[in-house]
């Protein structure tokens, strides 16, 4: 009796869980990047494979529990046909093949985003993450970034990066903004700096995520394909304001981006 109840519960749990996955009520937001499609593809492949494994395992479990309770009927026990060998061979072959397939494709997707270098003509933007905000630095008309001096960082005067415009000509026209504005269909190369503790850069629409590590400058590149406004959020615990640490990614047309840069430097 209790076995049949268990079998029914497992079956219901399996069906409901899968139904909600399939209905996509909670799902990834639309992809707005060039390389995100590879990740989405990898995700669907994995989703289908694991769904089959999940449903099969749970249902077989339910069926066996339903079918083989002890009814005091002195029935003889049966051993699974073939014993353990087919399971070992099956698991190694099936899971092994799946691992090979996923790794073969997946590592290319991974490499395209995180290993291969950015387009040499990328728009370079420096990102400074701090408790609990992001700041973005554009090189300004001279195309050069000024040097960073952590000892000069001063929140009250708005020197979030520690620039030294008095002595450093390259730093004078650097543009610092609290929003990440990028032109559409243009490769962007971010260089991630952390001011205090570890943070992260996560934009679900871009399908990318990267930690900021104090002491390291970490490159991250992407190309946005649609005019959108997305949220950049922190996924690495950084202190009490972690939940509230965010900025906006604004993907603009080329002309709007130029206008935006002008507006920023005018301030």
């Amino acid at each position, binding site marked *: 009796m209790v076995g049949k109840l268990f079998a029914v519960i497992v079956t219901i749990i399996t069906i409901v869980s899968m139904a909600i996955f399939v209905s996509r009520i909670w799902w990834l937001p639309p992809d707005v990047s060039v390389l995100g499609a590879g990740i989405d593809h990898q995700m669907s492949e994995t989703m289908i494979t694991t769904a089959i494994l999940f449903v099969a395992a749970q249902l077989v479990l339910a069926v066996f529990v339903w079918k083989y309770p002890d009814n005091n009927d002195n029935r003889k026990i049966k051993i699974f046909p073939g014993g353990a060998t087919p399971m070992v061979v099956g698991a190694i072959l099936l899971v092994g093949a799946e691992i090979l397939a996923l790794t073969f494709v997946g*590592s290319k997707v991974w490499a395209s985003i995180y290993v291969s270098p950015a387009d040499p003509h990328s728009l370079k933007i420096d990102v400074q993450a701090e408790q609990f905000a992001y700041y973005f630095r554009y090189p300004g008309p001279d195309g050069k970034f000024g040097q960073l001096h952590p000892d000069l960082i001063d929140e009250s005067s708005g020197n979030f990066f520690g620039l030294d415009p008095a002595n450093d000509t390259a730093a004078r026209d650097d543009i610092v903004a609290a929003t990440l504005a990028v032109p559409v269909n243009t490769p962007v190369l971010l260089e991630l700096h952390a001011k205090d503790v570890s943070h992260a850069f996560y934009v679900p629409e871009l399908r990318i995520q990267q930690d900021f590590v104090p002491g390291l400058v970490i490159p991250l590149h992407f190309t946005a394909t649609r005019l959108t406004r997305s949220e950049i959020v922190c996924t690495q615990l950084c202190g009490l304001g972690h939940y509230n640490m965010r900025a906006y990614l604004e993907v603009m047309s080329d002309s709007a981006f130029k206008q935006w840069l002008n507006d920023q430097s005018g301030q």
Partner: protein
Amino acid sequence: MTSPASNHSAHSQGFWRKYVFSLDHKVIGRQYLDLSLVAVTTGMILSWLMRLHLAWPTRSIPGLGAVASEAAGGIITPEYYLSLMTMHGTIMVFFVLTTAPFAGFGNFILPIQIGAEDMAFPRFNMMSFWVTFVAFIVLIAAFFVPEGPPLSGWTAYAPLSAVGKDSGPGQGWGQTLWVISIGIFCIAQLLGSLNFIATTLDLRTKGMTLARMPFSTWAWFITSVIGLIAFSVLLPACVLLLLDRVAGTSFFIPAGLVISDKLQPHAGGSPLLWQHLFWFFGHPEVYIAILPGFGIVSHILPAVTRKPLLGPRVLIACMIAIAFLSYTVWGHHMFMSGMNPFSATVFSVPTLIITIPAAISTLLWIGTLYGARMRLNTAALFCLGFVSVFVSGGISGFFLAQPAIDSYLHGTYFVVGHFHFVMGVASMFGIFAGLYFWFPKMFGRMMSETLGKWHFMLTFIGVYCIFMPMHYLGLAGNVRRYSAFTVDYMKGSIPLHRFITVAALFTGAAQLIFFYNLFRSRFWGPPAPENPWEATSLEWITSSPPPHDNFGGQHPVVYHGPNEYGVAGRDGDYIMQTSSEPEPAKVAS
């Protein structure tokens, strides 16, 4: 180093020696279980507070304001939320999932299962428990320090955990106590693991060959080897972190950090070094939590299905393979950490390969059910529940093992759902299975089966309602470790969070049935016979509870493996390990 049980006798013991600083492995095992019961209750209450806050952030939680100054008026502040989360994770991982299935049951059962009178080093054993106890007290003390409890998570990533007060509340004494507590805990676990290994190698009774050891003993033995290596690495990591915090060194703190407008007086350290050391421990720790569950389930399944476990040697080989592989995969926690992206693929492959022994084990358990004559008592149900949630949690690991998908899912609730299923709930089900199974042996009384089945059914439904939705949240990009969802795209997830909270309260309430059953049975349950489950291993040849030296002055001699169930053509359908009758003919198929 004294020889086991030689210089302490059952009689002439004072109260302290008998109940508090006891050298008897059975008392120590129960002490571990009692400690983890306190810890799991604490951890569960912390999780309710978190869940309540996530669902209704502006509602006051009655009584909380009076207990915690950080939650004035019963409203949890963001920093207090993170403290609750940190303490929940630390308490659960260290003082429940390591303590109960490994140290607790292992201590009580392992020596009996191999026919020994006690552990190899009873004094070390006692020290191991009391050192664990001190570690727990030190951790709990962190709740009551002026700057507040630590908030950098159970992973305590540097530099947040290393730079001290400047980085915000909870980073003063609270964090220091956290590091000290975990360091002390490492010492306790090293003593414990050393004891388990020496006991298993040297104190097996006559005839108890390695091949005849019960699966649970195998699992504890393998776990103790994993623990020995893992905690040997965490201890140095804690020492380095402590020195960074209190002695001004810079192992994990790089140059040029500006915190609260102050340039930090540290230079040259590597935050990733902490992550590598931590996860070199941290991933094997997952298997320290789950492998005893493997052993307990594999030990109970034959007794409740009345047939031998399918592929006993394969199962042991799988556990050994998992133990080896667990040391090659730590980098999968660090795909997004800024380590060399090439190494992501290198860590991904063994992570995926580790699913093979895990999948084989699962198939063996399910295959064992085929053609069985299942006695569906509570212990059996928790074993079946273990298999179900282990499958659910294991399968979501397939996503996270791939760096390309982790790129999206890392740091989201998908991860929370995954590890709670596979490490939290599966291990807890292993603990419950072990408790319902061995309770008669440990306390000499039977638990109520009716209450046990209610407890199982409600808990089983409850955990799926809590943790399955977390996978949906993760797919929607809902980030973990947030005390509120003010980010626009996450606001849509709040109804689901409320559902999870209700499910968590419901599941928590279901545990009251368990507590009631536990306490009632401990004192008023019907007396337990020697072998209530008709099981084969050595713990069932002695009285319930066993005498001080386990076998009343006898030394059992073993002739059989633990897996001989479903034997046809005789009175009972099983052969005790100590039975001197010859090997049975091949079981009818």
